[in-house]
């Protein structure tokens, strides 16, 4: 067990710090729509030009192939410099679609899409959840009928972030008639400009529309857009699990260590006061979350489900840090300042990507081996 930066690591950290200090945009990024896309793609293009795009991607595919320690160093400097949230409209492309294509895509798919993603020229959204299947992906019903060399897709997706400004969607649909659960699904690259697609943005409780519903009315997608084999979509969807520990989620986790410092500064709490004690607890937990982030990258997971531990700790800590900020602000929190906005956004942490309740079930059943629930 060691955390011993060599001279290369130290130089890398300084280089990252200097570049970020000079290049991080000073303004708070727009929350939604075209302005948010323009801001995010401009920032990614700038990163790409300086060699900071696709950090965890293999060099063979245009990435930087950073080692785990360099990834940690980069993201630590990234959040300390208050660079734009990694969870912007480029997130899905860089951290999910790209790695999936690298793992399972054809040469044609890779050579077309990967450069566009890295340079911020194409934005992707996810098309997994459906209205009847929030956290239960196995019950997907959106269907793609094979007609010649096309899939004809009908159905509906929901909670598709940035679908209104995306160029492509990673679409998980049922393609085998009568199939059930995880079988008979396909993972498809869906061009969002195809006829028959309707996007309806959903305003969230923070007043921002980055989610959307997407409706598919006889949308014809060439079979060449299927990634991996037809009807083998579940295993394609699972391949990115291995990449998951190296995504920009690292930035979100480390960012809480910066956020808690901001709350501590905001509070200026007297030693021993209830607020000071509360903030000390949160500071300790943010430190532990950082330690967990290190562990995630620097030690093989004990089970494939360890991500649920991270997800749960992160989600609840993010909420509690923002709750503390709101309480400290008092009545001023009624004004929609950055803390208030982020507080409201933090409500999604225990919902999106599997609710906190589902993470607890996974931890109990898959990590601890408790008996599965009775199904009625």
């Amino acid at each position, binding site marked *: 067990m060691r955390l011993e930066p060599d001279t290369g690591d130290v130089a890398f950290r300084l280089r990252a710090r200097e570049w970020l200090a000079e290049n991080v945009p000073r303004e708070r990024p727009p929350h939604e729509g075209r302005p948010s896309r323009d801001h995010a793609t401009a920032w990614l293009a700038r990163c790409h030009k300086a060699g900071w795009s696709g950090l965890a991607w293999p060099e063979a595919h245009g990435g930087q192939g950073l080692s785990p320690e360099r990834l940690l160093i980069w993201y630590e400097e990234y959040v300390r410099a208050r660079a734009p949230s990694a969870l912007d409209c480029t997130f899905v492309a860089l951290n999910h679609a790209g790695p999936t294509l690298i793992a399972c895509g054809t040469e044609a798919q890779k050579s077309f899409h990967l450069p566009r993603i890295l340079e911020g020229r194409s934005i992707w959204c996810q098309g997994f959840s459906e209205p009847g299947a929030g956290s239960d992906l196995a019950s997907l019903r959106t269907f793609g009928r094979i007609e010649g060399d096309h899939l004809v897709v009908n159905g509906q997706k929901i909670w598709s972030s940035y679908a209104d400004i995306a160029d492509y969607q990673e679409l998980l649909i049922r393609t085998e008639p009568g199939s059930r659960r995880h079988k008979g699904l396909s993972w498809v690259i869906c061009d969002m400009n195809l006829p028959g697609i309707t996007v309806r943005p959903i305003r969230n409780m*923070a007043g921002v529309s980055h989610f959307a519903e997407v409706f598919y009315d006889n949308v014809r997608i060439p079979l060449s857009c299927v990634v991996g084999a037809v009807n083998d979509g579940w295993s394609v969807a699972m391949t990115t699990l291995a990449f998951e520990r190296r995504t920009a989620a690292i930035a979100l986790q480390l960012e809480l260590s910066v956020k808690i410092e901001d709350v501590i500064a905001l509070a200026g709490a007297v030693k021993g006061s209830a607020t000071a004690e509360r903030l000390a607890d949160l500071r300790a937990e943010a430190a532990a979350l950082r330690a967990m982030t290190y562990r995630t990258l620097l030690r093989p997971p004990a089970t494939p489900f360890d991500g649920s531990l991270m997800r749960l700790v992160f989600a609840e800590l993010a909420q509690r840090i923002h709750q503390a900020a709101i309480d400290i602000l008092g009545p001023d929190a009624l004004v929609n300042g950055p803390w208030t906005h982020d507080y409201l956004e933090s409500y999604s942490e225990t919902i999106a990507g599997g609710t906190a309740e589902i993470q607890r079930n996974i931890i109990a059943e898959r990590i601890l081996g408790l008996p599965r629930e009775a199904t009625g």
Partner: protein
Amino acid sequence: MTFDLTLSEDQRQILDAAHAMLETNYPVERFRDGRAAAPGTALAEFGAFTLALPEEDGGAGFTIVEEALLHEAIGRHLAGPFSLASPLAVRMALMAGETGLAASIAAGRTAVCAGVDTAHGALLLEPKGAAHAVIVSDEGIRMTALDGIELVTETPMGHGQPLGRARLPSPGGTDERFPVLVPLASLLVSAQLLGVARGALELAVSYAGVREQFGRRIGSFQAIKHHCANMATGIEMLSAQRDMAAIALRDRRPDAAFQIAALARLAPRIAVLNARLCIQIHGGIGFSAEADAHLYLKHAHVLAALVPASDLLSLPAPLAPTGKE
């Protein structure tokens, strides 16, 4: 029985009437179909702002116990903070001898908004059209005319109900701060928070009874059940304490300040927690602005800002021990 916590026939009638009036004029759906800014006139016409005033002051002759019951119903319908400001404003106008103003507010002709002092000026909640503001501060409650006051519009939490910021004239002596109204303000705002907490539970329970995931209604999952049970216990504590505090204040019992302070300490926490759990139980749709869950949360925060400060630990406890150490 000299002790009795059942609702009297009168109380039941006034509550039934209030619920009907609120359901008609302040259905929670109004936030979705653009009727959010329902005027205060329906509440005024109902007599909500003078319910507990004596008949010679134009009131209905009920007591603050009934008024506290009414404010739970008002809170449940997420009526704007004017509903809290107005009955306080009527009282302040009367105490200041301004009977004409009192009558005008009571009748809904003069609109009053609520507000709270902050380090950066007073924050006024839904100030549009209001001629006066009732301001809660650490020193007490006061009323200020808004005539000629410059109002800076602020974006409210989650783009909810409108907010304005204003530099208001500093209050004069104690008589302009109406400390006598502070316990009543605490009681009414806490009662509204109870209503918010109850509304959030009802919404959560009805959703959990129909929404299916993994082939089952989500309300059959223990995790969801236990969230709902926690919401219910909070409501039980808060509503029992509301009754205790309202009776103590009405009857000028020596423990009134204690009971009110205990109530005010419980109310914001329970309302915010229930709203949070309601959102969580709804899952994705709960995080959207399309379901009503988030409205309860924002309303809980608005009301919580209007709870006057109190120092529960400094007050003598009614059950302080008498016996051996």
